[in-house]
């Protein structure tokens, strides 16, 4: 396993995409957090604190009205982790160097987890620097830990799902498409259909029932890790109560674990 990690470490260090993906995420976070911090510093509504930190750290995603952009950028890192193996015909060279496929996949999971967590952590620190730089009130320790941890966990799970999509499809382009479309399009379509059916039912306001399916849309559920308000709150009149950060995080974690389990089975059994 150590050898597989050494391989993965060198693989990541010696390829440009590692740097431009992390650089893009941090640069995006830096520019946007400066813009938001500047805006908030000139606002009479906010003077900083938890709410300002949550909005700046997630670039508005904590409001539930925007996706967590850094997760999408860093998520590509997970896709490329496995996608490069197939796109550039590296997989056979990799497996003749390290025949233990379990180690190869495990090393990629570990590397993706560590790198995406560190990248997300840097993004949170960039947000804090912007807050300090513009003289806004600092968040409480609880808000810092809760939101920081939630953002990091979501980003890691998001990146791992990208890795799993690439391992399952063995096609980098298809994996990128899945990573972008499943959270943003597929889940929205499912949500719209479920809401339409529930709204058209005899008792749309009845608690529970069919609409509870929405609680298990994995990326939406995982979003509770960093959202502090959500469009889902507007659905309470349909008897819908979403999971909190812990429950939502568990739903997403189970989904990603299932994807990785499928990836593992296929990776071990398929011809290289």
């Amino acid at each position, binding site marked *: 396993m150590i050898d597989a990690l050494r391989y993965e470490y060198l693989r990541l260090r010696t390829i440009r995409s590692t740097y431009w993906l992390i650089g893009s995420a941090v640069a995006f976070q830096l520019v946007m957090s400066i813009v938001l911090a500047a805006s908030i510093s000139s606002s009479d509504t906010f003077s900083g604190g938890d709410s300002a930190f949550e909005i700046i750290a997630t670039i508005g995603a904590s409001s539930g009205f925007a996706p967590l952009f850094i997760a999408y950028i860093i998520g590509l890192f997970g896709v490329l982790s496995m996608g490069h193996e197939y796109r550039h015909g590296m997989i056979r060279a990799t*497996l003749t160097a390290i025949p233990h496929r379990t180690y190869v996949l495990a090393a990629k999971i570990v590397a993706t987890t560590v790198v995406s967590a560190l990248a997300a952590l840097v993004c949170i620190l960039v947000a804090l620097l912007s807050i300090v730089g513009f003289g806004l009130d600092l968040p409480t320790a609880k808000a810092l830990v809760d939101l920081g941890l939630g953002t990091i966990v979501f980003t890691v799970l998001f990146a791992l799902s990208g890795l799993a999509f690439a391992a399952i499809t063995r096609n980098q382009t298809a994996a990128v498409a899945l990573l972008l479309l499943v959270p943003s399009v597929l889940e929205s379509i499912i949500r719209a259909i479920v809401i339409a059916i529930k709204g058209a039912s005899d008792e749309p306001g009845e608690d529970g029932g069919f609409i509870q399916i929405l609680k298990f849309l994995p990326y939406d559920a995982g979003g509770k890790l960093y959202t502090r308000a959500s469009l889902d709150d507007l659905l309470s009149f349909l008897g819908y109560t979403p999971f909190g950060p812990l429950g939502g995080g568990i739903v997403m974690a189970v989904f990603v674990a299932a994807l990785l389990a499928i990836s593992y089975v296929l990776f071990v059994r398929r011809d290289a």
Partner: protein
Amino acid sequence: MALIEARGLGKTYGAKRAVDDLSFVVRPGSVTGFLGPNGSGKSTTMRLMLGLDNGDGSTTFDGRRFGELEHPMRHVGALLEAKPFHPTRHARDHLRMLAASNRIPDGRVDEVMDLVGLGSVAKGKPGKFSLGMGQRLGLAAALLGNPHTLILDEPSNGLDPQGIHWLRDLLKHLAGEGRAVFVSSHLLQEMAVLADQLVVIGRGRMLANGAVSEFISRSSLGAVEVRSPDAAVLAPRLTALGAELTSEGGVLVARGLTAEQIGDEAHAVGARLHQLVTRQATLEEAFLEATGLAEEFRGGGEA
């Protein structure tokens, strides 16, 4: 020293049996050529040997399967396809990455870069390499662990004539050091001067396995050139003995009889012989003959 033993290798794609019950041995100190028409299952066989594809049978390297080898690049060097690398990762970094997984020092990376003639482009991006340079980088990767066994799939692809000459010398040298070299190639003339042993397959099945000289001598395409002022007397007798005769510029070319048989018959009928020369089939002729019926894609053949 490593002995490769492949036993009962088999692979099925859907309804098609791509490789069928192949068993052979590759001995240390020799170059074993792996021949077969396009699509005959050579690459699949090599992948089966290295555990990259799932299938029947097993291959051992000194008694151990590839997956059981610790730091396999130190035991078996493999080149399976052209350009198996990321186009923008520097050539040297590509090798460093592979070396790291097998605890091979970076110094060896520089050695093999120089050995394959890529020392001057160590910081080059393989995406801009020619096919021949890509093959050299692939060979460098195969040699990285100084392995006792080499499995090379069409390593001469893309190499220029000097490169092919260099590769021949290199592989002969490596075999001379006691390594087992198993190499596929479609360049039959090259294989004729490179290989000591042959494994010939067609449609995934074994057609021949043994020394190159045996394979060629078994070919019915070998002939005996007969120059005789009494050809008119001799020819009907040779035909009666089963020879197939043709005339090439006044020389009678007989197939199906040995020089001894022809000499004896000439003596028996009192025909004078001015020349009696055994002409062996070339490897190419022997190969085409051996694979002729098994050639899957030959014109007018079975689909």
